[in-house]
């Protein structure tokens, strides 16, 4: 019995070590992958961005802020770090990784809106974080996904049900297939015209406004304030921007829209290095020509908005100097 137990222990230790080794190999493959999912993450962790202006936020950041326009107008290196399904509590992972591995930006533009305030208890597209599990992001990842703790302890568990990632990692080693990167400096403009989804949404609402009763608003505001304090403590200039939303949507967002805007303004007033610009009253919000749905500008709208915001940045920071 004793020898059996010793054999089991020896085997377990050996297999545990081998699983770590295998996971290390897969992680490294993904870290060198040029696949769309890891392209920006790898640049962030390799410290290859070092932009003077960075844009953080959800899909509304990803689709709205064109770094080429900011670079042209401001003559400052710009990079869009927006991501689909990324409210403030998810953005923190990318922000910390960026600041740890790249030069501190001169200006951090944080897109704010109701969607960014919402909380999430699941990591959207969790596979994007897998190769970069570390002590640095453990706490943030764990707060969003309770399984993360087991994935940190048991090697290879994070790749369960993700056979495609193992293949992707192998492809990276042999420099074979990877999906083409559709973004430019993190920006993913859309050529779509108005897609009519908003009309369907209105029909479903049947005359009612959006329901935000499930949102713990107080808790979300506390989280946002904590975020701003962390950024301010790092002596970084922050520009809070509420990007354009189609005007009819603003009505459907009801009281939440008004009180959130007021809250962002109040928070910005509490700090010298934080400003708030609101684009929800801009003319661009009145025309479907510039949107592909009520929440996202198309490329045409994004170009106008990026240009306008560049002008605002010039105005603010020229006055400051």
């Amino acid at each position, binding site marked *: 019995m004793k020898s059996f137990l010793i054999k089991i222990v020896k085997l377990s230790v050996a297999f545990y070590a081998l699983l770590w080794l295998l996971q290390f190999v897969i992680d490294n493959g993904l870290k060198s992958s040029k696949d769309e999912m890891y392209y920006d993450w790898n640049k962030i962790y390799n410290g290859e961005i070092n932009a003077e202006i960075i844009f953080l936020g959800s*899909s509304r950041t990803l689709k709205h802020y064109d770094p080429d326009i900011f670079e042209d107008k401001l003559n400052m290196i710009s990079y869009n770090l927006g991501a689909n399904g990324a409210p403030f509590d998810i953005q923190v992972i990318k922000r910390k990784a960026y600041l740890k591995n790249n030069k501190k930006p001169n200006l951090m533009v944080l897109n704010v809106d109701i*969607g960014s305030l919402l909380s999430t208890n699941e990591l959207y597209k969790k596979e994007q974080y897998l190769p970069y599990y570390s002590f640095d992001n453990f706490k943030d990842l764990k707060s969003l996904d309770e399984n993360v703790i087991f994935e940190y302890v048991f090697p*290879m*568990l994070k790749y369960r049900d993700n056979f495609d990632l193992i293949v992707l990692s192998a492809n990276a080693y042999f420099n074979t297939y990877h999906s083409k990167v559709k973004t430019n400096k993190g920006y993913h403009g859309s050529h779509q015209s108005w897609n009519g989804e908003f009309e369907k949404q209105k029909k479903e609402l049947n005359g009612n406004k959006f329901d935000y009763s499930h949102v713990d608003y107080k808790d979300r505001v506390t989280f946002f304030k904590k975020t701003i304090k962390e950024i301010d403590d790092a002596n970084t200039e922050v520009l809070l921007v509420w990007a354009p939303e189609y005007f009819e949507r603003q009505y459907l967002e009801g009281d939440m829209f008004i009180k959130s805007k007021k809250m962002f303004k109040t928070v910005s007033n509490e700090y010298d290095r934080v400003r708030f610009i609101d684009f929800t009253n801009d003319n661009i919000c009145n025309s479907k020509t510039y949107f592909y749905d009520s*929440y996202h500008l198309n490329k045409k709208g994004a170009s106008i908005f990026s240009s306008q915001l560049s002008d605002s940045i010039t105005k603010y920071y020229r006055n400051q100097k």
Partner: protein
Amino acid sequence: MPLLLLGKNRKHIVSLKDLKHVPDLKTLINVFATFTLTTFAWVFFRSNTIADAINYLKRIIVNSDYTSLSSNSTMNNTIWPLFIFIGFFIIVEWLNRDSETVISRFLLERKFMRYSFYFLILILIIININNEASGFIYFQF
């Protein structure tokens, strides 16, 4: 049923040990045909109605994408890794056809290969654990 009634249903039973290490084409076709007919027959036993069974079979045969599984109520699941695993297990099964366990004499005599096999099985188990995070989440933002 006719074979059962005529007492000819066990006529083609042979000892697994008698089969060659690499099966000839005839054996391969026979094994494949028996397996296919049996599993197709199971569809009729497992379906609520004959129409359902025919629909299942139709979806198996006529499909726009044979590397994924989906229905009206589930998300699309890529299954091409499954083909690799099935192929692997068929080979293991064939190599061990005359053994009561999957650890054949071949593996028992080769310690390194046996432990490598255990490790491979362990990896297959881990990467096939269901991951709820792979599900589809729709975000408004």
